[in-house]
């Protein structure tokens, strides 16, 4: 059932064929019904006309026979009547006609009644309305009816009635009954033939539809398949061009589009590869001279007691700036690696709580930093270098922005996720700032951050690192109410995070304001 639904949705051929069959069937049903009604009516009318004309001549003949008799010569009358009733046996296959002779009600009151029929007919089948009509009119009257025999056999037929006068002025009604057996057989046969031909017609039309639509749809389907392959990255695929009709032109145009797409993409790829190579090369090339500069400045710095105050201060500034430059270079290289999709995850089983404590120790965090961790080890298979980098970034950010009002680091876990929340109660950030928080080189307050020597790439890299783990990094913040950063990681790589052990809106949040960046937004 779902397979059919799927075919209906996905295949024009299937849909058009089904529609064609349904519409053709309906049409043939209507036409067949009308046709069969017309034929039936025609056949019956024909038979009626024939029956009336036959009955008319029979009545005339019988009347003339009767006129030739006299009341006294009973025997002759009887012969006439015998002949009248002798129409053949009901058991013989074909009954041409039956006859019923009934006295009119006036006659019935007198004596010497003749009443009879051929083949044991049930007289009651002649309804009163017909009898009244027959008596009222001098012409022949007719009616469709069911012929019933006393044996129980029933046949559809036509009754044709008239009045007849037996000498001595006795008036009788005479009815000739003509069975419609043959006509019914004929109509039945025609009906069967009609339906057979109808079915064949439907089948043929379905076949033709299938074939014709198939011919049109096949190139379209090919185009769809090739477009899918193109989308999937196989840029070399092309449509076969057949003929110069609309489909041929479609194929031609499609191929031209694919060519131009391929050229554009490869141009962009080249460009982007060149650019990434350039960034990477520049970063690497800068490293050797930077090493020399760094060592030189270190030598100067260590000898600063022997220098005059200006030179000594210069040596201090030099070494600090070189450090900053180096951090920037490292971050830049890391970003270029993400851009080139060259970042590789090297996962080990790590206890996140120990990692947090280690980072906090290294940062020489102030005393008002609190760690809330579960008793159970929060183990996860992560790339420790990257996670440590995220932790260092988030925690040092929090310390820098907390303005001495404390930092709370919380670790929580579920069966498949582990989360880390870093909450501070410092300067926080506004909605507009929150939207740009993870942008490269973006700083909420340039003068502030530059003072601390951040590169402006920290959160951008942290977000990339989190996403590389298929985790999320979300941020909440309000001006002067602090900030809350939540890192959520899957415990095993490759399984995206589905549950968040720590909500990004902190429990002590003044009211709800959420700015978040996660994998879906990139």
């Amino acid at each position: 059932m779902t397979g059919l639904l799927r075919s209906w949705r996905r295949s024009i051929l299937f849909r058009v064929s089904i529609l064609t069959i349904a519409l053709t069937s309906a049409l043939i049903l209507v036409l067949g019904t009308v046709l069969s009604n017309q034929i039936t009516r025609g056949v019956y009318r024909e038979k009626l006309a024939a029956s009336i004309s036959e009955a008319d001549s029979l009545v005339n003949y019988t009347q003339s026979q009767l006129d030739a008799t006299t009341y006294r010569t009973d025997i002759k009358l009887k012969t006439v009547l015998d002949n009248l009733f002798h129409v053949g046996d009901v058991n013989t296959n074909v009954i041409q006609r039956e006859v019923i002779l009934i006295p009119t009600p006036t006659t019935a009151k007198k004596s010497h009644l003749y009443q009879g029929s051929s083949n044991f007919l049930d007289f009651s089948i002649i309804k009163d309305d017909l009898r009244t009509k027959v008596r009222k009119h001098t012409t022949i009257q007719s009616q469709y009816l069911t012929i019933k025999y006393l044996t129980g056999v029933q046949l559809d037929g036509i009754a044709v009635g008239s009045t007849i006068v037996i000498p001595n002025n006795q008036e009788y009604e005479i009815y000739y009954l003509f069975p419609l057996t043959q006509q019914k057989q004929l109509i039945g046969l025609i009906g069967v033939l009609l339906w057979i031909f109808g079915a064949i017609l439907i089948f043929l039309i379905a076949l033709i539809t299938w074939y014709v639509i198939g011919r049109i749809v096949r190139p379209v389907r090919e185009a769809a398949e090739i477009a899918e392959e193109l989308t999937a990255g196989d840029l070399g695929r092309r449509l076969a061009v057949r003929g110069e009709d609309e489909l041929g032109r479609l194929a031609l145009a499609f191929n031209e589009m694919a060519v131009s797409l391929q050229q554009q993409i490869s141009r962009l790829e080249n460009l982007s590869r060149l650019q990434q190579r350039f960034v990477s090369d520049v970063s690497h090339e800068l490293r050797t001279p930077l090493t020399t500069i760094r060592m030189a400045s270190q030598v100067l710095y260590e000898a600063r007691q022997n220098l005059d105050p200006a030179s000594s201060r210069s040596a201090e500034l030099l070494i600090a700036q070189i450090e900053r430059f180096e951090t920037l270079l490292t971050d830049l290289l890391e970003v270029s690696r993400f851009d080139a999709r060259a970042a590789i995850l090297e996962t080990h089983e790590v206890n996140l709580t120990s990692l947090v404590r280690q980072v906090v120790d290294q940062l020489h965090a102030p005393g008002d930093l609190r760690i809330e961790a579960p008793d159970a080890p929060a183990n996860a298979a992560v790339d420790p270098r990257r996670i440590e980098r995220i932790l260092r970034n988030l925690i040092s950010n929090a310390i820098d922005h907390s303005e001495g009002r404390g930092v709370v680091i919380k670790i929580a876990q579920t069966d498949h996720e582990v989360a880390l929340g870093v909450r501070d109660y410092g300067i926080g950030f506004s909605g507009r700032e929150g939207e740009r928080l993870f942008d490269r080189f973006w700083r909420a307050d340039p003068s502030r951050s530059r003072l601390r020597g951040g590169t402006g790439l920290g959160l951008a890299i942290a977000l990339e690192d989190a996403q590389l783990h298929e985790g999320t990094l979300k941020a909440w913040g309000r001006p002067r109410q602090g900030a809350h950063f939540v890192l959520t990681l899957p415990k095993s790589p490759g399984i995206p995070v589905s549950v968040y052990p720590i909500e990004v809106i902190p429990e002590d949040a003044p009211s709800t304001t959420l700015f978040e960046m996660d994998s879906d937004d990139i």
Partner: protein
Amino acid sequence: MPLIMVVDDDQDLAEMLGIVLNGSGFEVDLVGDGDGVMDIFRANTPDLVLLDVMLPGIDGIEVCRRIRQESMVPIVMLTAKGDTHDVVLGLEAGADDYMVKPFNPSELVARLKVRLRRSASEPISSLRIGDLAIDQVAHTIARDGKTIPLTRLEFDLLVALAKEPGRVFTRESLLGEVWGYQHATDTRLVNVHIQRLRSKIERDADNPELILTVRGVGYKAGSAGPVGTSEK
């Protein structure tokens, strides 16, 4: 004074390295390209080689391999690319440690000193691991009286494991103990050297009996003799 051979094509960097190392109490030989390295190495027999990976002529990896064929001298590589294939290639070619440019000169000096130090702790005379005898005075190990040559780093690594046979060492603790790193998380150093060490001392390196991997944690010395439990 220990002699350090600095192999670097960047003359200014080499000169600067010379200044810094001289100031820290080392003698320095400067070599500008890979082609002349082996002759000078054989002539001067330095105590340590500081080797730039990117060299004109024979590249640093090849130089490293050639030195290792002849000598167990400590080799520290200098590289501009800290996370690439180069590092692993260099370590597999026999380098003991590496420094990523731009490095902190005092960290470089500290690292070189670790590589040059003689084991300071009291040697345990009869240290054994499996069927290997470790002589901490002569810095040699032997199986059935036959000496197996090890680099000083490999020796230190083996001793660190052998001294506490039951203990499981994390890669991080080994980095601290053997390489002198404080908060390092680069576990490639440990992995590559454990592999190299196994290839020298294990009867079947794919089925180690002396240095066992403890999954998800690190390594420990095999407690059993020649027919020990193997990791699976």
